[in-house]
Each structure stands twice: as C-alpha cells, then as structure tokens.
C-alpha cells in the first residue's frame, strides 16, 4: 500500500513538472470492452486530426498533444478517467464518449472542473451542458426528418417503432410517437417494441411486424436497434420474406462501420438516416476519406457519421481557440458560438448557442457494397434542438448560453427559471 501511495505521489510530481508548452487534447473513448468496436475508430479520428493540425503548425504557435485514456466501456470509469484527464493531465479539451450513459457519467465531473468536451454521437437530446458541445444529431436532426421522409415520400401509414431498451430509443420513440400522433396517426397504427441489448432471437417480433404490416396500409419500421442486434434482425426480416419494398426499415444506428460486419444481402434497399454518408459527393469528403485511409493504413476502412461529427467538433474548436487566442475554457466557450466550419457533405456547420450544430439530414439506401445511396436530403442544414418540442415537459425548456438573460441549458419559459445549475 505504501508502494501504491508513493506511486501515486510520483505520478503526481511528474504531471506537475510537465511543462505546459503543448496544447493537450484528451481522448476519452473506450479502447476495450463492448464499446471498443465503435469508439476505437473515433480515437483514431482524433489522432488523425491532431496530426493534421500539427502539420499545419499547431494552434497559437503551439503543438497539439493527444492524451489517450481507456475507460474500458465501464461507465463509472468514464468519470474517473475524465477526472484524470482534467486534474492530472490538465488537458484543454476532451473528445469523447459514445453511449449516453457514459456522457451522463462524465457530465458532473466536467462541470465541476469546468472542462470542455465534444460529444460526437447522435443522441436523445434533453440536455445542454455548459461544458459539453454536442456535435452529433439531436432527435430533430435525424429521427423527425426521417419520419417525414417516410410519411411524405413513401406514404407510410403504419409505424413500427422498434428499439433496444435504453434511453436513446426510449426517448426517440417517445418523441416520434408524439410527433406521429400530432400528424393524425392513430394509436392502433403505431406499434412499439423494445428488446434487450444483443437480442438475437427475432422470430416472434419479426413475425408480429409482418402481421402488423399486412393490414393493407403501407408500413415502415423505425429502428433504433443498437449494434449487435441488427444482424440477426435483418437476417430474420429477409428470411421471413419481408423486403425493403414491402416494409422498409429506417435505422438510426446502422452506419458504414456497422455494415462492414454484415452480410449485406438481406439489407439491400433498407434505409438509414444520418447527417453524413461516406458516399456524399463533396471534394472535402473525398479528401477526408483519402486522408483517413492513409492514416489508418487500410484501404478498406470506411468513414461514418460520428467520425464526421468528431471532425466538425475538432475544426470548430480549433477555430474558436484561434479566435479567442487562448485555450482557456472560459474564453473558448464564448468564442464557439456562431463559428462556421465546412462539413463533409459540402455544406457548413454552425455552432449554436444551445451547444448543438446545424446539420443536413440525409437518407440513404443500403447498397451491396455496404455503402449508402443517398435518396433524400433536407434542402439546407437543420438547427439542432436540445429540448424537443414534441414532449410537453421539454417543450417549455430552451437552452441558450449566449443570451445573458438566459445563460443556461434548461431555461423554463413558464417559470422563467433555470433549475439544477451547478455553477
């Protein structure tokens, strides 16, 4: 135990004596455990961005230095490692987290220590922290436009909302249910189903979807099924003879990276909604893909939406640092608002005062090579809304960190108050 203490003390001394002549970029993505599959890619993306920035001469005349830690898909460990990054390593910014629960775990630590984190994954919304920028899609930047597309372009009348039982699908489906009802869809035309993580026996559920879809009205499945459970789900759909033309499935969690582990045959023609597809035709995108393949030294690796979100977040942060002339959180944060960076689909992403970004919404059909054919997109970028307008409780809440009169992430427009602020 003495050894332990002295080891701690030693590492402490080491971190104090470290000279602060680099800008430290913390990377908080799981490199082991169940989430490593998805998160390792994002770690590599940040490393690539850091290397890229250094080639351009760094920031403010300093080199960037990436500090990578492994929270091992263990949620309490996310909080511990975040603290390690901020206290021991004294990083200037953190790029990290994938699952909502890991973000929720990290959030109190980041707020307490006044850190700055960029969260790159589509999520359920209902949050706007002073210290976190959400570079992925909020529900109104993914789920709602996708449903609009199905409703207007495919004339879908009956809806199956199928998801894995955790907070993102739960919230998304709550929002979608309210939205559909507001569009006049009857209760009996909505079927909601939840399954556990890694669910593999889909026979019964697919069969009931099939029955639900055979009532004569055009039916679609809105899938928030997570990761592993998707392969057996699509396989079962294919085997039970449900093709994308009969009952299309639009997925919010199936991207290029996930498809690279699939036998794509049963998936052909099914849909996904994202803010970015590798197949997007833009010069910046071609450049990004080429750079990524060179960096990772693998010609077969694909790019995906969370990578683009990481890219946007990094670019916006770098721009804000230059604008603020400092990496101090209290200076960078105000500098972030209104910053515009080019996204990878040929448009621009603007940082909003609710810590979300403007993003285009794209719908893609799955192709045989695991890529998406973009079949629909919004006319222009959609502004991310932290608090959905379709649930009564959150409709009255707004987030605005720029307006001095509000200056909080959950301002209740009825009581004119912000609750639960730690600062």
């Amino acid at each position, binding site marked *: 135990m003495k050894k332990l203490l002295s080891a701690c003390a030693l590492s402490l001394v080491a971190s104090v004596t470290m000279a602060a002549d680099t800008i430290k970029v913390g990377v908080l993505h799981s490199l082991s455990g169940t989430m490593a599959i998805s998160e390792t890619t994002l770690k590599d993306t940040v490393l690539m961005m850091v290397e890229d920035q250094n080639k351009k001469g760094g920031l403010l005349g300093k080199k960037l230095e990436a500090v990578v830690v492994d929270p091992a898909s263990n949620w309490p460990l996310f909080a511990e490692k975040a603290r390690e990054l901020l206290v021991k390593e004294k990083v200037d910014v953190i790029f990290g987290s994938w699952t909502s629960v890991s973000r929720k775990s990290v959030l109190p630590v980041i707020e307490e220590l006044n850190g700055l984190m960029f969260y790159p994954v589509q999520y359920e919304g209902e949050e706007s922290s002073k210290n976190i920028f959400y570079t992925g899609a909020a529900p109104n930047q993914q789920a709602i436009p996708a449903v609009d597309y199905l409703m207007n372009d495919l004339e879908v009348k009956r809806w199956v909302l199928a998801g894995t039982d955790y907070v993102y699908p739960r919230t998304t489906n709550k929002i979608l249910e309210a939205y559909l009802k507001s569009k006049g869809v009857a209760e009996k035309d909505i079927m909601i189903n939840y399954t556990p993580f890694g669910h*593999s026996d889909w026979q*019964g559920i697919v069969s*009931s979807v099939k029955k639900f879809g055979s009532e*004569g009205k055009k039916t679609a499945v809105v899938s928030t099924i997570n990761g592993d459970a998707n392969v057996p789900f699509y396989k079962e759909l294919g085997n039970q003879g449900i093709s994308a033309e009969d009952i*299309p499935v639009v997925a919010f969690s199936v991207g290029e990276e996930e498809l690279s*582990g699939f036998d794509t045959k049963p998936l052909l023609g099914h849909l996904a909604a994202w803010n970015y597809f590798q197949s997007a035709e833009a010069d910046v995108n071609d450049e990004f893909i080429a750079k990524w393949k060179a960096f990772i030294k693998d010609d077969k690796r694909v790019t995906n939406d969370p990578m683009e979100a990481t890219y946007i977040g990094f670019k916006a942060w770098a721009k804000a640092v230059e604008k603020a002339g400092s990496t101090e959180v209290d200076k960078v944060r105000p500098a972030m608002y209104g910053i515009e960076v080019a996204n990878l689909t040929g448009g621009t992403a603007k940082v909003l005062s609710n810590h979300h970004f403007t993003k285009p919404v794209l719908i893609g059909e799955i192709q045989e090579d695991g890529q998406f054919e973009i079949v629909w997109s919004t006319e222009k970028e959609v502004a991310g809304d932290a608090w959905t307008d379709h649930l009564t409780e959150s409709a009255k809440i707004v987030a605005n960190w720029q307006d001095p009169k509000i200056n909080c992430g959950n301002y209740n427009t009825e009581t004119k108050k912000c609750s639960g602020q730690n600062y």
Partner: protein
Amino acid sequence: MLLRFTYHSVLRLLFVFAACYPFNSMAQDVLVPVLSEGNGSIEDTVPTIASVSERLAGAKLKEVAAIVNELETVGGTQVLPLFQALIDGDLFYTKGDKRIVIAKRIDSSKQYLLKDAISGDELGTVEKKKIRKVKTNNRLRSGIRTTIARLHLFSDDVSLRQGAISNMSEKLTQDNVNLLLQAKQTEKNKSVRASIEVALAMYQLDAGERSEKLAAIGLLKGNLDPTVRNKLATVVESESDKSIAQAAAAALKTIEGKITFYGYLETLFFGLSLGSVLLLVAAGLAITFGVMGVINMAHGEMIMLGAYTTYVIQLLMPNHIALSIFIAIPAAFIVSALFGILIERGVIQFLKGRPLETLLATFGISLILQQFVRSIFSPLNRQVATPEFMSGALEINSVFSITYNRLYILVFALLVFFILQLILKKTSLGLNVRAVSQNRDMAKAMGIRTEWVDALTFGLGSGIAGLAGVALSQITNVGPNLGQAYIIDSFMVVVFGGVGNLWGTLVGGFSLGVLNKFLEPATGAVLAKIIVLVGIILFIQKRPRGLFPQKGRAAE
C-alpha cells in the same frame, strides 16, 4: 452417417431451392396491349425507346418515375431487361456519351462489363469511374415490379404467373382487372386459375351486384391471404347492405380463427427453434459438466471458435458458400475439440476434484480466448454469408411459414443429439466414458486409461460446442462476445434438465424454448427471459437435481 445426411440434404435443398426460386427468366414477348397511335406523325415528335431512355442519364429521382411510366407505354416488353436492371441496381449510364447501359461487375474487381440496355449489345468492359448509376429508390422499384408483373402475367412459367397475380391483386385497377379477365380465359393451371378467381372476387366486392358480392364472399371464405382479409374487413366496415356485411363478418371470423390457430403453430415452431439452439449450445456442456463434472466456463468460447472456423472456411472458398458450411461442420468440430483437449491437458487435469477452482480457471481461459480472437480477427463482428438454401422460408400458407435456416438448425440439433447418444451408448469410447463417470477408481482398476478418456470426453463436449458455433453463425453475429451470450443459458438448460442426463438436456432445451416463446408476446422479450430465469431458480430449489435426476450411486 453424417456424410450421408449431408449429401441427402444437399439434394433436397437444391430441389426446394429450384422450386421456389426459379431462374428469373425474362418473359417472352407476350402481348401487352400497347396501343399504337398509328396516325403517322412526324418521326422526331414521336418518343422512341431510345429517346425516352436516354433521359434517364443523370435524371433526378422524381424525373425517373415519369420516364419509367413513359417507357412502359412506349416500349412494352422490349424494356423488360432495362426495368429488371433498374430494380437490381445494374442500370448505369456512361459519363461520356450518356448511353444507358446494363453494367455487371466482374467478380470483385473494379471492372464492369457493359451491355446496351435496349439492344443488349455487348459494349466491352470499363472502369467504375466511367459510369454512373441511374438512381432508384424503394417506391420506384415497387412501381416497376408491378409493371413487370403485368408483363409476366402471360409468361410460360407458372410461378411467375402466380407471383404476377398476387402482385396485381394488391392494386386492382380497371386495367389490371381487364388483364386478369383476359388471362383467366387462357389459363390452364388450376391453382393459378384459383388465384385469378380470388383476385376477381375481391374486385367484385367493390364493383359487383349484391348476388355477385355474396358469391364472392363465399369464395373468399377461409382464404388466408392478408389482402383478402383486409378487403373483407373494409367490406364489414363500409358496406351499407347489412346482409352482405354480415356474410363478410362471418367469413372474416372463420379467417381470424384459422389465423389464430396458425399463430399458435408458429409460436410453437419459434419455441422449438429456440429450443434447438439451446439444445445445441447445451449438448456439449451436458457432456463436460454432466458426465465429467467439470464446470467449463470457456464453453461459450468453444462455440465462438466454431463460428470463427466457419468464417475462415468461407474466406478460403468464397465462391462455394453452400459447400463451405458442410466443410465447416467437421472443421469446427475438430478445431474446438483440439482446443478442448488442450485445455483439459493444460489446466483442468490439475484441478481434479476441485470443481470451483475449475470454474475460475476456465473462466480465465475464456477471457484469454476472447482476447485471442479479438487480436487476430479484430473486435469487429465478422460476416458469415448464408447459403442460398438456408435463406427464405418454406411457405405453408400465407400466414404460416417456416424459415429455412431455423428449420435446418432444428434438424441439425436433433441429428447431433442422436449421434451423441449413439456414441455414448454404442461405442467403446462411450462405454469408457460412462464407466469413468460412474466410478473413476473402479474404471481405472479395470484397466481403463482414465486420463485418456477424460481428454477425449472433454474434446467431444468442446467439439459439439464447435458444431453449435457453425449453426449460430447462421443466425447471429460472429464476434468475440458470441460465447458470452449463451453461456448462462446453456448452464440453465443443463441444470434444469438434470445433470448427467442427455435426455434431460433435450427436454430442458425444448421446454425452455417453447415456454419462452409463449411468454414473449404477452410480456415482451426481456420479461419473458427474466421469468424463465427466476422460474428455473425456483425450480432448482424444489428439485435440486433437475427434471431427470441421475439415479443410483452415480448421483452422489
């Protein structure tokens, strides 16, 4: 025995496959009532196939739909290949001269073989860069499919005609009905005729006289097709004539009754199918745990190794997916069995008589094996293709079908089970295994090399886990966590069925599977699983030795 089975089933499978998926032969040039204007107007104002199709180059999705409609009227059956290519995603245009071509990728290279979409002339090969895809989406495809169905109505192929009718009966426009009437007169095949009559009867429900309507309802009574049911349901709701509405309601009730019956059958099959998976994953454990008394926490990883073996074999022979599965069966058995023997010799033999320690040590091994495949194959899931004979479903009627992959796995599980029984009961290895499991010291005294028997038994149990891996690769992900997902389930099955009793494992697996599936619709998947787990925990308190306890001396 095994070989004979495989050979036999291949034949059968091929037969079934051929019956259900005929080659998509293009319809012959059977007439389609395309009305030629024949007013002799000037040539350049009359749209030709070429002039219309050429507009597909670079067309936006909305424009494509209009062009397709125009092509149908202008081209008729001549544009069938073009439509088919459009559905299959093979329709491209050349970037240079905007020519509409059908492009097929040559194996997995970047080269594409081009054919003219209309004339069918070969145009040589080009690189992907030179061509661009004509955009389609689901809606367009389903529209084109109906068009193709119309063209297939007079095809020589019975199943094509059948498919065309079922497609058309969903969209009973006046045009389609006229075509169906026309087809009815020439149709010779009984079942196709019946389908046409059903479709026409549904049309009668809208357009017919009262007596025609009643006759139509009589015809439709007991028909399970969902379109029929929906039609009847709308009649019940909207028909003003009471007697017709009543007749329709009665017919609907018969149909609903039948559907409920088939619903139970379907759930039963789902349960048996889940049970067969449980039986497969637990059978190996029943040997190592039940017969040897060894708690092998790495059992799940033996399954995983079997699944990865299937993956590797497929990698080695990418062009023979179906064959690769049959090769994977013995290969997975051998790989997992070898790993099993290695584990037994390397670790377990030193822990004889200390089952709790074996549990911990094998758990350690399972962690190592997981990381091992993660290092070799990456943590990403690997893709194992499903051979054609295992995709799709055996359609018994339109509300009850059995998916082939599940069916074959059910058969496979039973086969493995009976072969295992045979080995244990009829071979000298089985005799030795049973002797050692009943009284180790006595067996040793009789000259049985118990260590050798232990290693082989463990190998056998692990090998069967490997077989389970081959089956699982067909229904779920092949990844490092594959085994973890099944380990608790398989222990439950063995303990529930009764340790040391293979029949117990069989009954345990199937009854848990069926129970789970009958609970699922009422409670949802998660709660069903929880209820089953808690049920087993309580059951074991009541009967600690499971369903079929081992009797006699060996029990203690």
